[in-house]
Structures are given as C-alpha cells and as structure tokens.
C-alpha cells in the first residue's frame, strides 16, 4: 500500500531515526554479544562503558540492566552556554553544529584527510551522517547541539532522569528555552527566504531534525510560493541575461560578464 504521508520526514519518523544514535551505557548486568543486523553488539561487562544505539539502551534501561551516561552536551553548563550563545552572541543564527563528522573520519585508516574537501569521492567510502556519527556518546564534545539533540535529550529526560545527576528539572528548563529561541529563528527564516534579492541558496546551518520536521511544510511552502509569484519576473530576467550573454562580446560593458556575476544583486 502506498504511503499516505506528505513529503519529508514526520516527527515520529525523525524520532525513529534518532533512536539509532549511539549513547554510552554502564551495564549493571552481564550480557553476551548479540548478533544484530546492524552488527554484533559488544558484550556487556559491568562496570565497563559501552556505546549502544539509543533504542537498545532504553530497552536495557527499562529493564534495569544498564544506566545511561548522558552526553556531555546535555550537561546544564553546556546547555546554558548554548542558550547564551543562541540569545546573546548570535541572536540571528543557530549555534554551530557538532564538528564530529570530519573528526571521526580523520582517525579512520584510509582516510586521506580533508584538503579542499573534494576529489576524494572516488573511493566509494560511505560518508556517515547523523544519526550515525556518535554525536550522543560520552565522547561527544560539549557546547554543541547534535542534529538529533531534542529527540535524544527528551528521551533521556523522560526515561533516564535518574541518570542525569539530579539536574533533570534544570535540563528540562534549558531545553524549553532552546526550543523557544530556536523556534523564533525558524519563523524569522521564512521572511529571509522570501526577501527580495534573495538568491536561490539559503543556509540554515545548525538547525535540528525536529525543527525541520515541524517547519518543513511551511518553509518550503513559502519558498515555492515566492517562486511561483516571481515566475514571470524570473523568466524575463533569464531572457534578458541570455541576450546580454549573446551580445556580451561586442557590448561588453566594463566589469560585467567576468567570473561569478551571480552573487552580486545589481539592483534590477
């Protein structure tokens, strides 16, 4: 049967995805390795820490077979720091995303290092992206929000609050603050997207998965609406530019038609 959902992941699909994030657990019972489709789980030997996908960690937690070590970015000090940056330092932008990806890949054998970021795509190596970047283990850095920050944080606050060192209510409060300040940014982005002179590329660096799920329909609706309303203008512009390109040889007004004439909006 065909899927009746609109394009783009829904909240529950995003939550499903976030459950694949690795988190660190401290086992309370021994458990032998299990042969899963995603690979063998490490054998659990209390009190040795191990990284497991969130869905499995929550299963163990509910059965009191393990405790979950919250990722460092969930510590109240880290969250407060991010709130500060999101409100005071960069009130317009989302805070920087977690730098894990390249860090992790650099340590891998066969990885040539990131020089210029291109030209290394023939190797066939798969590039890992969230939720497969170990952004929520105890080894992840503090001070950054991973792509699935809200889903993972909410899951831990709800199901592993006794592992949060008595900070649960403080963390809850900080999470609410973050949700609110970032939702306002998301709303403002709609106006940026529709602004006159806006080129065809807009970055929302640092945005989270749930924030996208919540606003996707609206934001893309605004972008598509602006495109349709501007359809005639855009067609006319392209025709003009094509003529200019064709006549550019003789006409050649100084400075125009060199490299990258695309990003300066020369007031039409």
């Amino acid at each position, binding site marked *: 049967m065909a*899927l009746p*959902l609109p394009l783009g992941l829904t909240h529950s699909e995003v939550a499903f995805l976030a459950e694949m994030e690795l988190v660190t657990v401290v086992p309370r019972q021994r458990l032998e390795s299990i042969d899963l489709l995603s*690979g063998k789980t490490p054998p659990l030997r209390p009190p040795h820490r191990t990284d497991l996908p969130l869905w499995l960690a929550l299963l163990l937690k509910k059965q009191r077979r393990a405790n979950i070590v919250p990722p460092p970015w969930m510590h109240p000090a880290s969250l407060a720091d991010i709130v500060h940056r999101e409100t005071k330092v960069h009130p317009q932008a989302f805070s920087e995303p977690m730098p894990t990806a390249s860090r992790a890949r650099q340590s891998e054998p066969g990885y040539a290092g990131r020089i210029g970021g291109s030209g*290394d795509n023939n190797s066939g190596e798969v590039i890992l992206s969230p939720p497969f970047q170990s952004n929520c283990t105890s080894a992840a850095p503090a001070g950054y929000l991973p792509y699935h920050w809200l889903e993972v944080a909410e899951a831990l606050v709800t199901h592993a609050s006794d592992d949060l060192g008595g900070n649960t209510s403080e963390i809850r409060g900080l999470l609410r603050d973050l949700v609110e300040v970032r939702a306002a940014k998301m709303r403002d982005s709609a106006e940026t997207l529709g602004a006159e002179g806006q080129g065809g590329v*807009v970055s929302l660096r640092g945005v989270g998965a749930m924030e*996208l799920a919540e606003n996707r329909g609206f934001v*893309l609706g605004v972008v598509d609406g602006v495109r349709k309303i501007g359809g005639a203008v855009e067609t006319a512009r392209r025709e003009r530019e094509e003529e200019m390109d064709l006549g550019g040889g003789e006409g050649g007004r100084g400075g125009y038609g060199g490299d990258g004439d695309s990003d300066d909006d020369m007031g039409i």
Partner: protein
Amino acid sequence: MDIDDILREVDPTFHAVPQEKRNLQELTRAWIAERSAPELLPWPADGLFERVNDSIKRQIEKVEEMTGDMDPKTNFALIVIQTELERFKYLVRSYLRARISKIDRHTLHYLSTDALRSRLSEMELAYATRHQALLHNHYLSSFLSSFPSALQNLNDSAGINMVETPDLESAVFIRLLKDTLVEGRGVDSDGAMDGRESDIVILRWADAKSLVENGSAELV
C-alpha cells in the same frame, strides 16, 4: 555472501565502517531521500536493497530457531533481535511504500521513457504496468468507452499535458556531506555559496539533484 561482498570486505578503504553499519547508513539515507525528494529516485544499483533483504530473511530464520529453545537467558537477546528486526522491516516497508506512492501518483510519467522506467525495480515496473492496465480497463468499462474515440486518451499532450509530472523545481532541504560549492537559481538573482560540511541548505530540487547524485550532499 557473494563475491561482491567478499571484495568489499577486503577493500582497505572499507575497514573503517563495517559492512552492517554501512548497509544501515545507506538504507537510512535512501529512505530519507525517497521520503523527501519530489520525484522517484533511482532504485539503488549496488544491490543494497537485495543485501538488506537477504539479511532480514536470515535473521527471521534465526528468530524461529531461537524461539525453539526457551532459555530465559537467550530470551532477552531474542527480544533485542526482534526489536531490531522490526525496525529494519519498518525502514524497508516505509521506503517501498514511499516509492509506490510516487509511482501511483505519476504512473504514466514513470512509464513514459526508458530512462524513467529504469528508475524502477523489476517488481515496481511490473506493478506499475499492471496497475495502470487495470485502471485503464476500469475507466474504459465505466465511462471512457462512452466518449468519442478522440477523447478516450489518457495521455494527450496537445494543450496542457494530461500526463502529470512531479514538480522538480520545488524546494528541498539538503545536508552537505563535504565542503562544496552550492549553486541555486532564485527569482531575481541566482546564488552561489561556498558550502561547508554539515550545512543544511534550502534550494530547488533541480539545483540540488547533482550534489545529491555525486554524494556531496544528502536530502534531509
């Protein structure tokens, strides 16, 4: 395991990420992409889907074996295995159903040229062809046959084309997987930006497509 798997296994560049994790990453990526792209994407050519399906089958057999001996110790392992199995089945089903919904919506379009047909798997192609034939017969017997023969076509392209197509200009979100130049067309100016890894960018699907196809970006 066939020869491709073995070769993949001994390829030094693959040491870092084990095959199972790669499969899951690729399946997840394909699922998200299919759930987000305005058009049907090509069926994965590298046998990803067949690989995942085989391992799911093997896992189901294992579960059946394990349910035979009901030692409470293996019982928990069984719960874990079954939970994960359900998660994989959910991914696969959702992926297939997302594709079917696109095929259903624009069946005639995806059957119209060889290039478009080649995006469908063998089963999907059989499904689309038969489903369209059933529909056509149904329309014929219920009302089309009463129309003048010139008005019986469902694929007239004079005037507004009767064969609807997905809107490739609609906007999408992508994540850059490496630093790369991102170019996109806008209404009153076209833009370019030196994208950095992890950037999440909004642009038209037609402009994003090449980045996604060459692995510089993924749909989110």
